[in-house]
């Protein structure tokens, strides 16, 4: 193939490819956002249910200060472990 032809083919591929990657992922950003907001509207009650047992068990544990200390330590360990 002629060299200038080769270069122009390369430039074409770059513009077309990069453009397409951006278009695709931009669309995906919108689709994902849309999907997330719809899903969260539809299945709102679910997280509430999973959240409720936490305060109950917290009050059942009685000693709040100790619990908070333990939880802070656990969160810290979890974060630094990652």
């Amino acid at each position: 193939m002629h060299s200038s032809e080769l270069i122009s083919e390369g430039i074409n591929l770059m513009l077309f490819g990069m453009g397409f990657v951006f278009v695709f992922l931009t669309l995906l950003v919108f689709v994902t956002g849309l999907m997330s907001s719809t899903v969260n509207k539809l299945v709102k009650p679910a997280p509430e249910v999973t959240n409720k047992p936490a305060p109950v068990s917290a009050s059942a544990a009685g000693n709040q200060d100790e619990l908070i200390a333990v939880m802070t330590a656990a969160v810290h360990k979890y974060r630094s472990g990652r």
Partner: protein
Amino acid sequence: MEQLLSLWQGSGLYNMGLGQLTMIVICMLLLYLAIVKNFEPLLLVPIGFGGLLANIPEAGLALSAAEQAIHFAKPEVLAAIAQALDANTADPAVLKHLVHETGPSAYAAAQLAAQDAGYSNGMLYSFYSVAIGSGIAPLVIFMGVGAMTDFGPLLANPKTLFLGAAAQFGIFATVLGAVGLSAMGLMDFSVQQAAAIGIIGGADGPTSIYVASLLAPELLGAIAVASYSYMALVPLIQPPIMRALTTPEERKIEMVQLRTVSRAEKIIFPLALLVLVALLLPDAAPLLGMFCFGNLMKESGVVDRLSDTAQNALINITTIFLGLSVGSKLIADKFLAVETLGILALGIVAFGIGTGCGVLMAKLMNKLTKTPVNPLIGSAGVSAVPMAARVSNKLGLEYNPHNFLLMHAMGPNVAGVIGSAVAAGVMIKYLGG
């Protein structure tokens, strides 16, 4: 005495060529890097060993029946192959060249002629045609990667997809570089070969093997070796680029904690991605289809046995055969060429540009959006899951010990996998036959 002589002439030592010896040394080096230096050992051990096997003189483990027949050059067999290939000469060198250039039907005829004469395909050749020639192994690996991927961080902050897109610039810039080298007459790459080399910049082993097997199978060995070696070198290649492009203040930026993502979102996401692929880019469907399938198996939670197999047993089995098959391409006359050096050099350039563009994009996002974005997570836009994200995290901790970027960097990291698969799809669409 006669028998002793024939034993000597059939020995590996007698038949060892300089090229084969060099390749054996190179494969030993790969094994050394894998075993002692711990460079992607899961792949470099099978690749290095496959390369050793492929270069055993006279054994012809990586050769097809036709290639072996031509190598042993019995006149009547050569004549039969020449007839099958429609060539008017029975010169082994010419036939050897022709058998690679010819179309599938003539190739099949030459294979049959060689098999008639009692030659059979080498072991590694069979592995190659089953695992890579058919395209199966990279796709099965992609399914396993999908089953190991957590899209949570990406769903919590979908904007990080832009980082995954920006990092793909390395791929296309490298294509231009490879084409430029051929235009200047330094190397001789076709556009297809340039595209296959560029994909190294996606830092995604299975994707680069898949693209190379479709667009430039003759360069597959070098591309796979370059791709996996650079993935192992991520912690060395990326930090200097990341430091050069960011200020210390930017590196200290703390990001807002990610929201929790519901199970329903995680289940729907692979399906939504697949629909988008189906609508826009069917050529990326093999790669992203398997990826989404693997992810759906994991997130649905109802087929744990399948998901477990996909991310453990199956991916391990496939890796063994993929590695050996890649090793079969490390034959002296195909690997020892100036082009290989070009591929290694272009690959690292692709990687560097991808990293740089990701970081720059993250800086831009930090300027444009209200929520702070630490530019260090941009480098994770090249795939290399999860190594690139770990590098971002490590560098962030270096400048601010309370700054945990890992989860934030996982978003662009998996976005990079999607981005490079999309880029691969575009290449295949644009250049594939």
